[in-house]
């Protein structure tokens, strides 16, 4: 992986020296801690989101984080609370929209779109109400890894751990409900409750990811690793593990690249994830190309 270093950066291309430099400052240690928590949570939840075809809902939840954070900053109560609060409320709103089966789908996406547009407009209002905040808008939309405090890392860790714990308990029925809601419901799986729980988890995770990649680039960690892993393998356990691994690698690489260059972290994380996704889809396409000729006749 080639990292284009700025002339002023101290990248020595010596792995040991560079790694030591990377962790020399406490803010950078915290950035890696936060990035690791976020990457694991985003990978695991994002895998289910891609499987459930809820990317649009995920994106809307992310955009709702923007007015949440902007409003919280305007009120002076810390952006993280705005992210978590607004994303959770939006998740409940989306869960309350009529859904299920193909007929209701367009209606639901229209409803989600309405929430998304309104959220962006509110964010814009809050930003203009808080005039001195304009420099922070970039960080809210496109991410930042500077100045993450120990307290923020702890909040991220607690929320991430709760989300993962719920996923561990509900993972198998959730997979069943995602793959085939009709049969899962007939088998006694509480499909509607799981759908609500998943949207809440998605809201919390999106709020976490937004704090690193910004609201506009959450898909770098929420969609790309999962889509890449699912293109490479159809085994649920393997592709879930691969998703988390890809998510971690692109986050760490993005943090490293952003540290040694003057360019923002959101760009690097997204670009690395995009490179992995492109490579994975190309691999899958190449693998599939001779398929019909060599596959055993059904």
């Amino acid at each position, binding site marked *: 992986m080639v990292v284009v270093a700025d002339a002023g950066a101290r990248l020595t291309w010596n792995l040991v020296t560079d790694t030591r430099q990377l962790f020399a400052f406490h803010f950078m240690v915290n950035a890696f801690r936060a990035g690791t928590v976020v990457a694991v949570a985003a990978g695991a939840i994002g895998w289910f989101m891609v*499987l459930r*075809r809820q990317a649009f809902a995920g994106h809307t939840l992310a955009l709702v984080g923007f007015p949440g954070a902007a409003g919280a900053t305007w009120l002076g109560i810390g952006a993280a609370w705005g992210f978590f609060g607004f994303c959770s409320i939006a998740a409940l709103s989306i869960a309350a929209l009529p859904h299920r*089966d*193909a*007929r209701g789908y367009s209606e639901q996406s229209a409803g989600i779109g309405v929430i998304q547009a309104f959220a962006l407009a509110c964010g814009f209002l809050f930003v203009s109400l808080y005039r001195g905040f304009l420099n922070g808008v970039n960080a809210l939309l496109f991410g930042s890894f500077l100045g993450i405090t120990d307290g923020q890392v702890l909040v991220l860790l607690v929320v991430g751990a709760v989300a993962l714990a719920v996923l*561990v*308990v*509900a*993972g*198998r*029925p959730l*997979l*069943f409900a995602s*793959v*085939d809601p*009709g*049969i*899962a419901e*007939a*088998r*006694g*799986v509480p499909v509607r409750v799981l759908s609500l729980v998943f949207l809440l988890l998605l809201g919390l995770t999106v709020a976490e990811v937004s704090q690193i990649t910004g609201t506009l680039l959450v898909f770098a960690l929420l969609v790309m690793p999962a889509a890449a892993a*699912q*293109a490479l*393998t*159809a*085994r*649920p356990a393997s*592709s879930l593990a691969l998703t988390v691994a890809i998510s971690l690698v692109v986050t760490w690489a993005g943090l490293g690249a952003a540290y040694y260059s003057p360019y923002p972290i959101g760009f690097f994380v997204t670009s690395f994830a995009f490179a992995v996704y492109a490579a994975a889809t190309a691999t899958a396409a190449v693998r599939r190309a001779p398929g019909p000729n060599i*596959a*055993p*006749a*059904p």
Partner: protein
Amino acid sequence: MREAARDAIHARGAAVALGGRTVWQGLDLAVGQGEFVAVLGPNGVGKSTLVKAILGLVPLSAGALSVLGGRPGEHNAGIGYLPQRRAFDAGLRVRGVDVVRLGLDGDRWGVPLPGRTRRRRDADARVADVVNLVDATAYAKRPIGEISGGEQQRLLIAQALVRRPRLLLLDEPLDSLDLPNQAAVAALVSRICHDEGVTVVMVAHDVNPILPYVDDVVYLGPGGAVAGAPKQVITSATLTRLFGTPIEVLQASDGRLVVVGQPEPPAYHADRHEHP
């Protein structure tokens, strides 16, 4: 009349009403263990509702119904159910064996411990057995979205069978399959019914693919329901009485039955999205 407790399904004067409207009534039915019974009738007549009543998901408004010797819903663990459904999304990247496996333990909370535990070996063996039983071994490890509708339907039947049910409820499993696949899946269900001793109740739109295999048919109509051997039920006289309008049953030279005059929309797939 056989003894009710020994039958897999036994109904006396059963009726179901949904939202104040009677869906069907006067259903007398006796399905013996190991029999293959088809539920027939035009669109919207309540075929899926009968399956749901057997599962205890829809209450009876009159009459009595016993399933596997108990109330409907009491012995659902012994029932394998395949709801009416559309095909899987083509982009769904989950293997066929995983879908079958979900039928075995997909409703259990928690995540299985990694490693080769005994339970996991047993589960893997059971899934492999049942996939083999429906002749799906060749494609069971491919993503389920990428295989054909007939192949998906076989794997779903495997999923319904994976817990060794005594009763198999299949709601329009032949719907949206082409004719050769309809014949093949019907033959497969018949073979499972006989070899495994599983009672099969199959909702069908067209009786012809399953006519060589079924023991009995249940014909639902607006006036009530008729159950019995296909030759007694699917006749001009019986169906005319059931529908209260002149109906003619014609037999083609290859043995296929054609029901003419049945009040039914012409489009074959018209009831695919019906969820009564």
